[in-house]
């Protein structure tokens, strides 16, 4: 049994560690006063179009960081090799993210490429995949509906074949930033199908007639879900991603991608929150004695989350079944982070509630993570299902 990174992974981790030390940490004082929106992913999308000079200045800093990272070969880490990326292991990606999370500057290495887009074929590759890899296009993910979420049998949006086209009708709720995205990965079902069968995924360009983003909705988390309306929207069959009728599997694959990142992110953020709490009580002996054991407890929880995350990533690299581990990490990570931040607000008092305060931002951002991408209830369900399927054998060593 060996918990160490491989030499190659370790070398990558050290590069990122250096990058964080040399490039990000020095920017922290500046970002401590950044506008509220520099939490979550809002700054990468809608805010890019802001004319506010202060925001433009921050965006310019981010662009500079991006160029430096690209130069050091730290950009396309999780892009497959055929597309010019490093295609690093899950474990390596966790190690990289762990380093990045040591800084509070909200900088990520690489662009967000929805993993299912690697299933693009033919012209789709030039039109959707490459621009996403290069950061020229962004996409929204159109699955949930007013009455359906994780349950495919409730999906009501239909795609009716009509010659070489499909005619799409229905409403999608909550694809984030769809109003500023270039296209949407839309899930709809063929007429007369039910359950998982017949669900098909389409790549629908913003501006396609019959496709309208009705509104965007403010949330405390800074992510902005939208309402999408499709009225007799005609989409050519060349826009089908993967196979007709096999779209539900794509959704599952999307959920499964890099699913241990949530663990190491929560680990990093939790550690940073606890550092702030420690700083708050540092000069007050009574406060230190009062809070020390709870801080210690949460630090221990945070380290436990780290161990669990690496375990999951390693199992994923071995192509083992990681459904239970992934649910484990998602549940542990999001619930822990919530408790850590709640605790930090208790220690910080009212000043922690200031809108721009790191803790207030962290709170707003963390709350959503207990719901999105499978709420805690679904995670527990997955865990118990595995438990009753495999018994304690699922917890045994390999």
């Amino acid at each position, binding site marked *: 049994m060996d918990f160490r990174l491989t030499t190659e992974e370790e070398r990558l981790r050290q590069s990122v560690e250096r990058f964080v030390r040399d490039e990000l940490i020095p920017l922290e004082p500046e970002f401590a006063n950044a*506008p*509220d*929106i520099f939490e979550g992913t809002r700054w990468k999308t*809608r*805010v*890019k*179009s*802001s*004319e*506010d000079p202060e*925001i433009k200045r921050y965006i310019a800093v981010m662009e500079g960081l991006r160029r430096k990272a690209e130069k050091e070969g730290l950009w396309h880490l999780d892009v497959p090799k055929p597309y010019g990326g490093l295609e690093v292991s899950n474990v390596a990606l966790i190690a990289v993210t762990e380093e990045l999370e040591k800084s509070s500057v909200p900088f990520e290495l690489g662009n967000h490429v929805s993993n299912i887009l690697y299933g693009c074929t033919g012209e789709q590759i030039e039109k959707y995949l490459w621009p996403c890899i290069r950061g020229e296009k962004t996409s929204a993910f159109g699955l949930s509906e007013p*009455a359906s*979420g*994780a*349950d495919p*049998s*409730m999906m009501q949006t239909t795609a009716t074949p009509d010659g070489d086209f499909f005619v799409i009708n229905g409403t999608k709720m909550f694809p984030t930033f769809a*109003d500023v995205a270039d296209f949407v990965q839309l899930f709809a079902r063929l007429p007369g199908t039910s359950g998982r069968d017949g669900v098909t995924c389409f790549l629908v360009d913003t501006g396609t007639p019959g496709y309208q*983003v*009705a*509104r*965007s*909705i*403010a949330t*405390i988390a800074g992510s*902005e879900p939208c309402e999408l309306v499709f009225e007799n929207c005609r989409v050519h069959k060349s826009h089908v991603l993967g196979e007709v009728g096999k779209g539900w599997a794509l959704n599952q694959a999307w959920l499964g991608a890099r699913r241990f990142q949530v663990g190491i992110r929560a680990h990093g953020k939790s550690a940073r929150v606890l550092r702030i709490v420690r700083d708050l009580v540092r000069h007050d002996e009574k406060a230190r004695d009062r809070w020390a054991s709870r801080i210690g407890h949460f630090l221990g929880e945070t380290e436990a989350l780290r161990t669990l995350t690496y375990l999951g990533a390693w199992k994923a690299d071995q192509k083992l079944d990681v459904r239970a581990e992934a649910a484990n990490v998602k549940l542990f990570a999001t619930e822990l982070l919530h408790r850590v931040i709640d605790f930090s607000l208790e220690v910080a*008092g*009212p*000043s922690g*509630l*200031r*809108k*721009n305060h790191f803790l*207030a931002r962290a*709170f*707003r951002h963390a*709350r959503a993570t*207990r*719901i999105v991408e499978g*709420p*805690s*209830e*679904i995670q*527990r369900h997955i865990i118990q299902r595995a438990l009753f399927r495999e018994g304690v054998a699922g917890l045994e060593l390999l």
Partner: protein
Amino acid sequence: MDLKLTEEERLIKNTAAQFVERELISREGDYLRQDTRFLPPGAPARRRLQPAVSKQLAERARQAGLWSLEVPEKLGGSPLSVVARVLVHREFGRSILPFRPVSIPAFLFDTPYSEKLATGEISLALAFEEAHRTGELSALQILYRQEPDGTTLRDSSIFVSNSGADLFLFPAREQGSDRLGLFVIERDAPGMSITDEVDLTTDAAVARLILRQCKIPNDRLLGYEYEAGEIIASEQLNMAARSLGIAMRCLASAIEHARNRVTFGRRLAERQAIQWMLADLSVEIRTCTWLTLEAASRADQELTYFEEAALAKKRATKMAFQAADTAIQIHGG
């Protein structure tokens, strides 16, 4: 022991409930509605109640007997029992509209401000953040020294949440002693200023009350430790009561959603996980309801009630958070 509401209590509770339903809940849609179809690229602005709406609501609340709940009879009010006041605040807690009856400590009605406070012409803020934060009087920053020609306040900077008020009530410690004094200061008093307002996550704001070379007339000293304790306890009961209203609303909404929402072929209400979240929440609400009422009832009977009020506030505010969190989870999950 008789835990039923008296007729008077039931009456004021129903009046408050109707007011909240008709005047506040009916306005929530407007208040919450997003101004634009698409969000602007900058940081979102703080939501506020329009001043005209605020004024109109205050007027109607006054007509309904739900405004200055403590105004004494000699000033034309009909002061409520503490239990009744708690019942009113509990109803107001049901609405997310930032509007509630102001609380004016009884002893302020013996000051020159009394009439204007009673009519609502001027407003009052409690600047007790420091005392709340540490729970220790020895930690108070503001020191005072009484001299024949006035009271000198040491230069200080404290947080204050209702920064738009005309009068500020705050505790201070006497220089060289353990005595605590309770002072009122006018917004435009020389040496006093309000600065650095920042938005909170809660749609409220917080500002700093700055004292620099500030000297005030001696009659601005309105009380001592007991009066300060009373104000704190009274505020705690109000907060506990509001929290109960918040929680009841959240619970009702979660129950309704759970009854209607179907996932994987079953209603959420049939799932034990959901049932238990709500069962636990209801236990907490029942507990906090009666802790709050018992503390209020003790206050009415002139028994000690500061500790009871503190406990009710601590528990009820946590409960309100739990209620909102649970309701969000059930709606979102």
